[in-house]
């Protein structure tokens, strides 16, 4: 305490003489320099372990130019059928997986909210959420492709599984910090458990649930463009093929279509969100 007062007095005197410096973000100089030193050591170690084959990079530079050129002249025509088929598969996977995922996420989310679920159910639901959120969609897709065979079905299951973790976690958090007075007010009228859910909890979480579903729809579409790489259907397989054949103009066309659809998704979801609020 007195140390602080001493420092303040010293700083006041210095300011009186016209010498003033900004207070450092971290007060203890040892900790401050320790962090700076630690970051520097990490950067040196990390950068040292990055191996760059500069010859290969120089060789690839020509391809980079080709690729940028392809963006100026994307080729939608020569692989038209493949692109349309891939897109259709991606879109159907996106829609079905989001619907199924959200529906399944609701019970898991209710179970994962500590204030309405008993402990065993809570633990089980939180475990589901943790597993689903930890693994990248592609890893899950690998497993499901092995189980269900190649094709969009495995992709749909993958995306639905990932949706459960995402939605259930956010839903559970929402329920955990909803306005408990409203719930008590409905309970006080003698409402049953289902009636409480319908009249007190649903109205509070519904707008955000719809907004998040739209957001997840968007994410699922973007993910559906990559899980094709491991054989789970969708536009990703087409993209992967075109890239490995160095058909950059087709790849550019596919990427542009993906960007356009994501934009459209975002635009419409902002409308839906405004409409539900």
């Amino acid at each position, binding site marked *: 305490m007195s140390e602080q007062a001493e420092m303040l007095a010293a700083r006041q005197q210095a300011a009186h003489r016209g010498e003033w410096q900004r207070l450092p973000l971290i007060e203890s100089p040892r900790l401050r320099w320790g962090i700076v030193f630690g970051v520097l050591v990490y950067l040196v170690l990390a950068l040292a*372990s*990055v191996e760059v084959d500069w010859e290969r990079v120089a060789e*690839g530079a020509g391809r980079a130019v080709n690729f940028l050129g392809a963006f100026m002249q994307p080729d939608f025509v020569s692989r038209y059928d493949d692109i349309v088929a891939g897109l259709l598969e991606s879109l159907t996977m996106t829609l079905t997986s989001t619907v199924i995922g959200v529906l399944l996420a609701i019970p898991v989310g209710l179970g994962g909210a500590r204030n309405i679920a008993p402990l065993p159910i809570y633990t089980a639901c939180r475990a589901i959420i943790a597993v689903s959120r930890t693994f990248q969609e592609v890893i899950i897709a690998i*497993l499901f492709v092995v189980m269900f065979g190649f094709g969009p079905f495995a992709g749909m299951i993958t995306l639905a599984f990932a949706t459960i973790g995402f939605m259930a976690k956010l839903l559970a958090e929402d329920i955990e910090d909803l306005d408990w007075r409203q719930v008590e007010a409905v309970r006080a009228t003698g409402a049953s458990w289902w009636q409480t859910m319908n009249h007190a909890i649903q109205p509070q979480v519904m707008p955000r649930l719809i907004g998040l579903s739209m957001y997840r729809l968007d994410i699922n579409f*973007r993910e559906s463009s990559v899980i094709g790489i491991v054989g789970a259907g969708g536009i990703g397989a087409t993209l*992967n093929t075109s890239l490995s054949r160095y058909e950059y103009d087709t790849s550019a066309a596919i990427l542009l279509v*993906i960007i356009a659809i994501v934009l459209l998704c975002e635009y419409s979801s902002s409308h839906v969100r405004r409409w539900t609020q």
Partner: protein
Amino acid sequence: MPVSTSPLGQPIWRRRTTRAQWLQYLAWLAGGSLFLLCWKLISDNTMWVFVEDAGRQGADLISRMTPPEWGYANVLWKPMWDTLNIATLGTALGIIMAFPVAFLAARNTTPHPLIRSAALVVIVSSRSINSLIWAMLLVTILGPGVLAGIIAIALRSIGFVGKLLYEAIEEIHPTPVEAISATGASRMQVMNYGVLPQVMPAFAGISVYRWDINIRESTVLGLVGAGGIGLQLNASINSLAWDQVSVIFVMIFATVLVSEGISARVRHAII
């Protein structure tokens, strides 16, 4: 009006008007049919024989994955270090690039509407394209390796950090900015004194959040050759060494949980 009068002259309350009710039924019907149509398309493209076989395949998979070959973990330390580096360096690089882009994209700090549109295009294209696709592109250009992974993560992070940051910039209090302008400060000084202090906490939070996501993303970049633990995963899957795969899974799970914990802690401390 949802209140109408019954033939007996009694007022009846309904939640919606008849018209609104019908429109709602119609919307549900349309949504339902769309879902069924999509389902049909998927089921046409599915070999149901394989799906019926899924239970047996799953059981088979689990039996092959257990017990995990724990000794394999020793090979994994270097790839795991690479994965962490890809995520961390990639995030750092992405943040550095996203920072100016966000200021150009925010309505209240952009120098010109045209520049704003350009910045928004950068953000949208970066967001729409998954980091795995970026990695595929970069591997063909730069060759396989950690560098392609770092840049892929950085390119994907620009959009994410840029979008959240420019939204934060648009939500700042305008009065301190006005006050700083009134002192005769230049544009850059107004940014430095009026805007930056207000968005700094949001910026730090967003960056740490993206780092946590990037750890997860960088675990799979190896599948397309962009370095990290994904390379080992790919190799083990191709050689059907499922007992090694399970070791990798456990490792990824642990790493992601730890990074998520760190990220949540840091964000909690900032806010």
